[in-house]
């Protein structure tokens, strides 16, 4: 035990006098670079999510407007799509609700409405879907 103690203090003393070795410096610089890049990426992630949030506000408002515009749809269902300024693609789809027999309402009087808003976000595409049930026009 005393022997190893002696050896280690000796080595430490020598190392302290000789400064850092190249390997130690390389490791230290590499650790610093990695931590900097992690910090950088974290900041980038925050920026991206704020950008996604703003687009999301737009998409939700657009979808709510589309639901308001399609409160009454044809009894046979409908499908419509378009694109807004700012690159939002929207799609509205209505399908008759199939009611169980004996049905209290005619088929087509209740409609499943699905509004989908899509927008590009970098390499992928994001989307927001609103589902609702609306009235269908009575067949004449």
């Amino acid at each position: 035990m005393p022997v190893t103690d002696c050896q280690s203090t000796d080595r430490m003393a020598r190392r302290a006098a000789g400064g850092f070795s190249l390997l130690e410096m390389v490791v230290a610089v590499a650790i610093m670079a990695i931590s900097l890049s992690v910090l950088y990426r974290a900041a980038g992630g925050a920026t991206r999510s704020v950008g996604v949030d703003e687009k999301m506000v737009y998409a939700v408002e657009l979808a709510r407007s589309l639901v308001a515009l399609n409160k009454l749809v044809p009894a046979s269902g409908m499908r419509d799509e378009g694109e807004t300024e700012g690159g939002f693609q929207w799609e509205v789809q209505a399908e008759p609700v199939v009611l169980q027999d004996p049905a209290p309402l005619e088929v087509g009087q209740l409609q499943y409405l699905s509004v989908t808003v899509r927008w590009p976000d970098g390499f992928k595409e994001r989307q927001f879907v609103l589902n609702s049930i609306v009235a269908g026009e009575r067949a004449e």
Partner: protein
Amino acid sequence: MNRSRGFTLIEVMLAATLLALLMVAVLAAMRTFGNTRATLDQVTARADKTRAVSEFLRSSIGSAMPVIRHGEVGGDVETGNSHGTYFVGDSAELVWVAPFVAGADLGGAFIMHLARVGDTLELRWHPYQRDTEQTDWTGSKPRVLLDSVEEFEIGYLPRNGDEWISQWSGDQYNPLLVRINIRAEGHYWPELVMHLGGARLNLR
């Protein structure tokens, strides 16, 4: 012996150059962080404003009440002195009555007045009283909903299958749909469409 010799000029210059490069990289990173922060604040504020203003307009116009505006029965609709619902507007301004809570002690039905004044979007409100004929707007301070408005347009859809019109003269019923198109601070807003349902005034 060798160790006490110190560094050669080349070694010092190399070290200084490396240090300089490192500092440049760190400074650039710092500046990017600073810019990012400013941009983040701006985008967050814009998104917040869009959300708050859209939500307010959607809920308060969407809950417009078909209440009586006093005036002569069969009077002049254009000047607003006919007897009809309290829902009058054109492409740049709108007057309606809706339930509204402003602060802790105010509530009930309010007459709302939304208008574009210069490049701002202003809202005034006044408690709705059944028997007043002319609303006195002098006591109400306008609140600015939006600055730097570049485009503001209101449209009205009377009935399903009709065309959108740009004037609503306060007849016996509310429009089915109201839409608002806004462009502010160089950004297009999503079209706001409110469903009012075309509620009819009950004159009893």
